[in-house]
């Protein structure tokens, strides 16, 4: 008696082929997902209590990053400004703007504004802003052109590869430390950046071989 129909062999082969395709597709989808903006949140803004615009404050008004992020040169964290910092201006300008109601409320009650973090590193990563600023890694290198962000979004994926690309080849990413908050570096050619970076590496004894080891970031 016949066990299988005449088309069984075709179905079996089709099944095997489908399985192979499925495995390949899963690998591709998995790899794509790991790099997707859905996962890395690159370019996504987050809802904030106050729709703060870096474009307005940095791009249009030219306020330096360190005016608000005061601890960036001395501490691991750049720091978020207390409400008093906002009020240095907003006690004088836009005093009645509905948009700023949460800021006034924060000042009145003493409860800080609750900002939602945009640039986030995993907690098993030891990252120190001060040393990066001190050696001339410009803000724009990791945070992108915040002077063009009406609402703040994550500019880079902050994957390990992103950190390592720079740690393994720091030269093109180094700038004069005194200009670290400058956003627009279009007047620096690649050659100039490279030449400056090589000199900076020599001066600061930056050794990629050391920056590449695990315990630099995972302590």
């Amino acid at each position, binding site marked *: 008696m016949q*066990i*299988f129909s005449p088309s069984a*062999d075709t179905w*079996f082969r089709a099944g095997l082929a489908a399985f192979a395709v499925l495995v390949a597709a899963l690998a591709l989808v998995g790899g794509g997902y*790991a790099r997707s903006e859905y996962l890395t949140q690159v370019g996504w803004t987050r809802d904030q209590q106050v729709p703060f615009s870096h474009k307005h404050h940095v791009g249009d008004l030219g306020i330096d990053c360190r005016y608000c992020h005061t601890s960036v040169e001395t501490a691991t964290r750049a720091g978020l400004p207390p409400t008093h910092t906002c009020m240095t201006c907003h006690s004088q300008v836009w005093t009645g703007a509905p948009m700023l109601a949460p800021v006034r409320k924060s000042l009145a009650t003493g409860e800080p504004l609750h900002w939602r973090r945009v640039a986030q590193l995993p907690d098993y990563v030891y990252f120190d802003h001060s040393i990066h600023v001190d050696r001339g890694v410009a803000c724009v290198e990791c945070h992108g052109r915040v002077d063009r962000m009406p609402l703040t979004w994550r500019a880079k*994926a902050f*994957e*390990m*590869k992103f950190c*390592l690309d720079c740690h393994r080849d720091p030269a093109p990413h180094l700038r004069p430390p005194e200009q670290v908050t400058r956003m627009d570096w279009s007047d620096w050619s690649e050659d100039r950046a490279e030449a400056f970076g090589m000199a900076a590496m020599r001066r600061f004894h930056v050794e990629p071989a050391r920056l590449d080891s695990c315990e630099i970031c995972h302590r």
Partner: protein
Amino acid sequence: MTAPSRYHQITGEVVSIPPRFPAPRAWWLLFAGALALLALWVVAVAVLLVRGPGVWGNNIPVGWGFPIIGYVWWLGIGHAGTLISSMLLLLSRSWRNSLNRFAEAMTLFAVVCAGLLPILHLGRPWYFYWMAPYPNTMGVWPQFRSPLAWDFFAVVVYLVVSVAFWYVGIIPDLASARDRATKRRWQFFFGLLALGWRGAGSHWLRWRQAYRLTAALAIPLVALVTASYALLFAGGPVHGWNSTIFPAYFLVGAVFSGFAVVGILAVVIRSLLGLRDLITPLHFDRIGKLLLATGLMTLYGYLADAFTALYGGGYELETLHDRVGGAYAWSFWGAVVLNFVPLQFMWRRRFRTSPIVLALVGVSVAAGMWLERYMLVVTGLFRDWTGSSTGLFHATFWDWALFAGFIGVFATGMLLFVRLLPVVSAFEIKREIGESGG
């Protein structure tokens, strides 16, 4: 008996086992025991995943503990199946035909157990695929200079080749099982697995090429896998491990423990399925001789290791003192006694051909080789170079639960194999009868 009727009888004997199982009661009893251990495995793994490796006795300085002991032990058991099958195939030792099928299945399930143990040992087992070299968002590759990366590759390749070898070898028997099956569900089951085998000349030609090619691939893999995990030990600056004899020492020890388990399985399967004229005293005799030979080589490894320590002195000598008289002397002497004392029965043919003696020696050797792995891992680690990093290792309940659980994983796999598939290579035995003229 004429050759054709003998063919008929062998095929009937082997392939009719799954549809008309000869020992349902004994099988169900064993299977219930295996499932209970499997359930224990599930619980032990769940507890590990929820609470982390702190549930084990592993702690600095003894970071390896039971999972790595088990890993080395299970892989070693697996190697014997590959060697019996492939090496004896290429050497045309036809007596292997009664043993190779279940020995290969033993390899498969042992490798599965061995592969899972280091993954569970990772602490975050769900990231085990980081061991594989694939383009990732971290910008790092596995450390190709480390034996760890090569160990991973070796075990994965070994698993794939073992599956391929076992499956290619079983296809012709699956086809005879399909042709003999009367119930629709067995016809379908075997028919699907037999991949449309019709026994045509072209099939046999291809089959022979594929089978011998896979066998030739499998043999160097045994050496590769043992070497890779032996070098994981030998590559470290740990006294008692830092020894160039390790790859050879691990290889013979592995095969020794594997032949012991082949012996146990041969006795159990023979009496469970009543395969008295397929697995004969001749086979027990051969297994016993192999056990004796590999056992004596392992003993030589022990002696060479001790000699190196005596000759080299220093920390190596201290580790030797620790082994023969320290906190873990029981594991050293336990290994020596269980491995080599009952083994001496194997000098006499009368004991080699006795199933009960062979099985008991097998159990003793399997336990002895486990103790040896314990002794190697723990005595190497528990006393470091500095007094501050000395710490005794004590296995916890969950260590033992996982150990027993893995025996459940192995036994469940083996019992399902015995229940569902042809356990002996019927067609190879028939060819042997045909070639020897009946």
